[in-house]
């Protein structure tokens, strides 16, 4: 399906010219949910890296988590958290919460997978089962909308 077709689902009033295909793609709320999930995943990884780097600093203050601010990774993480909130609010402007929120749970697939790939954490069989269930659920929630888009 073309980006223009996706756009027609989300904002029927706007018809973007082909030259603006990229911004049209970014305007699609389902693409935005994917990007939002990537930013949330990045924030979790950055915060974990920041926490890891500062784990041995001043123990008396450690319980507040404030010592984490000594790491650049933590600041990158905070930046991603702010970005993800703004993008989430923008998504809510466009599609129902009862669809957006279940789909946003794709982060529960991305976080374990990227933790496994980039920081060497292990994934247990039970977690693989959970990842599979989330993926099947995502397909079931998203499928009716894919079908509407095909018809347009």
């Amino acid at each position: 399906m073309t980006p223009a077709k996706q756009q027609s689902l989300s904002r029927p009033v706007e018809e973007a010219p082909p030259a603006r295909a990229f911004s049209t793609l970014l305007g699609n709320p389902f693409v935005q949910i994917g990007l939002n999930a990537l930013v949330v995943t990045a924030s979790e990884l950055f915060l974990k890296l920041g926490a890891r780097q500062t784990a041995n600093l001043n123990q008396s203050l450690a319980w507040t988590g404030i010592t984490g601010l000594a790491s650049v990774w933590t600041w990158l993480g905070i930046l991603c958290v702010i970005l993800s909130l703004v993008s989430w609010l923008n998504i809510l402007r466009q599609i129902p919460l009862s669809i957006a929120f279940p789909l946003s749970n794709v982060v529960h697939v991305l976080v374990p997978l990227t933790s496994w790939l980039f920081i060497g954490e292990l994934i247990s069989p039970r977690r693989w089962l959970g990842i599979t269930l989330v993926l099947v659920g995502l397909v079931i929630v998203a499928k009716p909308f894919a079908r509407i888009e095909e018809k347009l």
Partner: protein
Amino acid sequence: MRALPFILIFISLVTFVAGQLLFKRAMETSIKFGFRKDFLKVFLPGVGAMTVSFFLTLGLLQKFDLSFIYPFQGLSVIIISLAAAVLLREKLSGQLLFGALLISLGVIFVSLS
């Protein structure tokens, strides 16, 4: 005393769900009236609810394992879909509910281990 953690988990869930519903309502208001007083009247309580939820969760995490606290977050998927249907009058299909239920279960399994 045993019930206290579950009461706190319940409040953190309710405030999280309330926060999301208020955010959604705020963004709908912003489409009609822009980012002005009417928007802030709904958005700021949303931020408040999210803040309460955040610190309750943080407090719970200091006393319990992530694998005890986090599975309850999985329930938020199904609760938010139902609450959006009832309180925001969003359309809810059987398929959407089934998908949300699988995602809820999946999140619980991911966070248990």
